[in-house]
């Protein structure tokens, strides 16, 4: 199975094209991205995708930042195949979208020119969270079908009087007898050797480098902590509340299926200390999501399929985007109740975030300030695609465990535990 990549494409929008782009996004919002002109349902290995518009704004020094159109996809590797699909399969839609952007080669340009343009407008994420690294779209779909087939098979009989082991054996035989489920008897293939080797090297190299730097870090850390605390003390509580019209626009795009798209954008605090802190935190998050939180849970949150932190405009701004299960209120509650420290470490370096203490405390612990901050900085996502609109991340993990339980020997207790997944 392939590993997953987060592709982010950002392109400036010509000033006079912004109203037209807004109107087009509204139209696409009604049509959706699954079918023509985007036909994303046929883009290979695509889990989620979205478009959103970042309106023109001025940075903290008053310099103008032009409006830009952002496209994001969470997709199975390789990148080359995905970019080709975006032009070959979703080409008509991509042309419609990016014709509003300066420099787009246009619908009549050659295929290679379009691919090169998309490739050239990619923005690298500083961290990309994948609920379960290596679980590709095909696997998710197959395992959902497996669970459906087994559940239906169980429905068809009265199992009273059978032991759990007997029922499991029946289910194994049922799967063995169905050619279309033959794959389920084998474990899913791992990601490529190259990917695994790269990750293994990264996993070892980072702690090694830190160990070598430890003496220096130990000297710097106290100074850094005090300097940061002094800066923090100048932060003011958040008093801004989101405007009703903004809330209405956001909720107009939310809560249609199991998952929702989330996107926020904000400025990074401009001081050198904050910029440095932010990059260090992003480095840590990148490490954590690659090597620690890479299976079914982001530090205790089990409802996020994909999430990414993408620095924009040379790290002056940052956008965070995720595809998560359930409502935004529940999502924020998870942030506040479970990973407040992680949110604080990252967003605490953002302008307009509730004040933190020693980077990790405060911040998200101010429930309403935090919720208001996120809502104020949230960007409407008018066009969004999900490949599995009724599957929660928990469902997907459960399905994988059902498949895994088809193999090997099990005692009665384990067999019963496995049956309860169904």
């Amino acid at each position: 199975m392939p590993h997953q990549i987060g592709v982010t494409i950002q392109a400036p929008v010509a000033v006079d094209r912004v109203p037209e782009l807004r109107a087009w996004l509204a139209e696409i919002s009604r049509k959706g991205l699954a079918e023509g002109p985007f036909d994303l349902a046929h883009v290979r290995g695509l889990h989620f995708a979205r478009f959103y518009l970042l309106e023109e704004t001025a940075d903290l020094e008053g310099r103008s930042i032009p409006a830009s159109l952002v496209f994001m996809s969470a997709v199975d590797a390789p990148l080359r195949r995905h970019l080709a699909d975006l032009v070959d399969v979703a080409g008509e839609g991509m042309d419609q979208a990016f014709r509003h952007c300066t420099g787009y080669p246009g619908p009549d340009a050659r295929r290679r020119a379009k691919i090169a343009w998309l490739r050239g407008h990619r923005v690298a994420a500083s961290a990309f969270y994948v609920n379960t690294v290596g679980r590709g779209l095909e696997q998710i779909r197959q395992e959902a079908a497996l669970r459906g087939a087994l559940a239906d098979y169980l429905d068809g009989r009265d199992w009273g009087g059978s032991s759990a082991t007997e029922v499991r054996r029946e289910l194994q035989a049922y799967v063995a007898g169905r050619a279309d489920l033959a794959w389920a008897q084998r474990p899913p293939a791992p990601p490529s050797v190259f990917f695994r080797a790269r990750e293994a090297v990264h996993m070892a190299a980072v702690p090694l480098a830190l160990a070598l730097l430890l003496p220096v870090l130990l000297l710097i850390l106290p100074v850094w902590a005090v300097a940061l605390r002094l800066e923090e003390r100048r932060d003011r509580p958040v008093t801004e509340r989101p405007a009703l019209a903004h809330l209405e626009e956001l909720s107009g795009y939310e809560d249609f299926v199991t998952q929702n798209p989330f996107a926020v954008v904000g400025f990074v605090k401009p001081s050198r200390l904050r910029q440095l802190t932010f990059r260090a935190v992003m480095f840590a998050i990148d490490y954590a999501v690659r090597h620690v939180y890479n299976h079914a849970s982001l530090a205790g949150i089990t409802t996020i399929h994909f999430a990414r932190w993408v620095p924009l405009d040379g790290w002056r701004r940052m956008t965070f985007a995720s595809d998560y299960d359930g409502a935004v209120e529940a999502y924020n509650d998870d942030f506040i109740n479970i990973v407040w420290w992680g949110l604080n470490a990252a967003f605490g370096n953002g302008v307009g975030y509730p004040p933190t203490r020693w980077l990790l405390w405060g911040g998200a612990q101010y429930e309403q300030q935090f919720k208001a901050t996120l809502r104020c900085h949230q960007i409407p996502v008018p066009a969004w695609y999900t490949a599995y609109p009724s599957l929660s991340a928990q469902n997907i993990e459960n399905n994988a465990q059902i498949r895994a339980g088809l193999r090997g020997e099990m005692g009665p207790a384990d067999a019963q535990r496995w049956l309860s997944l169904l």
Partner: protein
Amino acid sequence: MTARLNLDNIQGLVARGYRGLSYARFTVFAIPGQDAGHAALSWLLPRITTAGKFTADSALHVAFGAAGLRRMGLPDGVIAGFSAEFGEGMAGPDRSRFLGDVEGSSPRFWDWGAPQGSPADAVVLLYAATPEILGRRQAELAGCLAAAGIHQVTVLDTVELGDNEPFGFHDGISQPVIQGLSKGARGARALPAGEFVLGYPNAYDQFTDRPLLPASDDPRHLLPRDPAGSGAADLGRDGCYLVLRQLEQDVGAFWEYAAEATRRPDGSYDPQARTALAAKMVGRWPSGAPLIKAPDNDDPRLRDDNDFGYHHTDPDGLACPRGAHIRRMNPRDSLDPSPGSEQSLAVNDRHRLLRRGRPYGPGTAGTAADDDHAIRPARDDSSPARGGTGLHFVCLVASLARQFEFVQHTWLNNPNFNGLYDDTDPLAGSRDGRGATFTAPRRPVRRRYRGLPQFVRTRGGAYFFLPSISALRYLDQLPAGAVSAPAASPTTR
């Protein structure tokens, strides 16, 4: 920290559900203008029951919607200090989708509260010990409203408050216990008053947002000052949000479904199995006994038992299914993070509702005692019945979003709740294309019930604010255009 509540300034409905006042009627009305509103409020004010000592044979409460407060003369800038959900109202299209008020529950079909109907600006809730007293109080109220030229949008009758809700189950057992307000209950976790009354620290030890006015807008010092110390006049303190929803219950369909789904192989009905399935869907037996303690048979001795968790005794839901009504509406210790832990309970505590609903309409369900599945009218009710049978659902909260709406969306109507795939609340959930499955775990194989009909439909509803006595006095003396703009922004401790 336990804050001392100003009971004489809080409307009594927060403190008590008036079990002794078995008769109730809720009058929803539109306020044509400020003069009419003031005429009504001046009449109502001295009649309102507070949370202080109570011995009377009737009680009266008044609550206002956002539009109602505007018509009373409160400027938009002040109303913006209430929560966004309150300002937006219950019946907008996005909110309807969020709350599951779609298809047959859509505001298009509501009897009241829909955008196209008369505005539900305010509601008066009347409670009385006897039908005669209720009738008298209601006539006085109707007289006052008529004199003020106020149009009654709807009068929601209720039936005599018994032990059971219309499906036939003992109800109202698990209520949050509130610090400084409730008498301590065994095994119950006392929640900070700020979860249900504004102006007191909530479960995060913070003050929930509420409208604060410049002190200069309250020269007569009618309002308490912001307890967080901003000096602002606190219009929200000692008040709370009141959610009113008319939920029509298809009692016949519920029991018929349970009876059909549990027929014996020879096709005959199995009343015991029928009641057992109904109990699985609810999580309690008709008597109220929780399945977690009485998994196989009803045990009326446990009718008020509320001292239990789920995770350690029943992690797989063999006794009480994960999707059962009471395990969704109050999951206790069964949810992430780390089920069974204090952290899980603490998360649960942030989503509690103080329920004050009353049943309406003729007839309630047969119960386990009945031999057949026929529905028999159990209440001899002489009050005029309109629009079927159900519950005038009332709940009081400090946060509509974190409490009522969260429970409604994330727990009740979420087909993926707690690892499930396609199960909304079997009793009260919406079945909008999804969610029509009920999963009852068993050994060795769970039983899946599919194609569950929708048993509960929303027939009306609105968000109200139940102001403190001082806030009502403030509203009462408000001349047109008296208040300028909100003073301070909400404060945090």
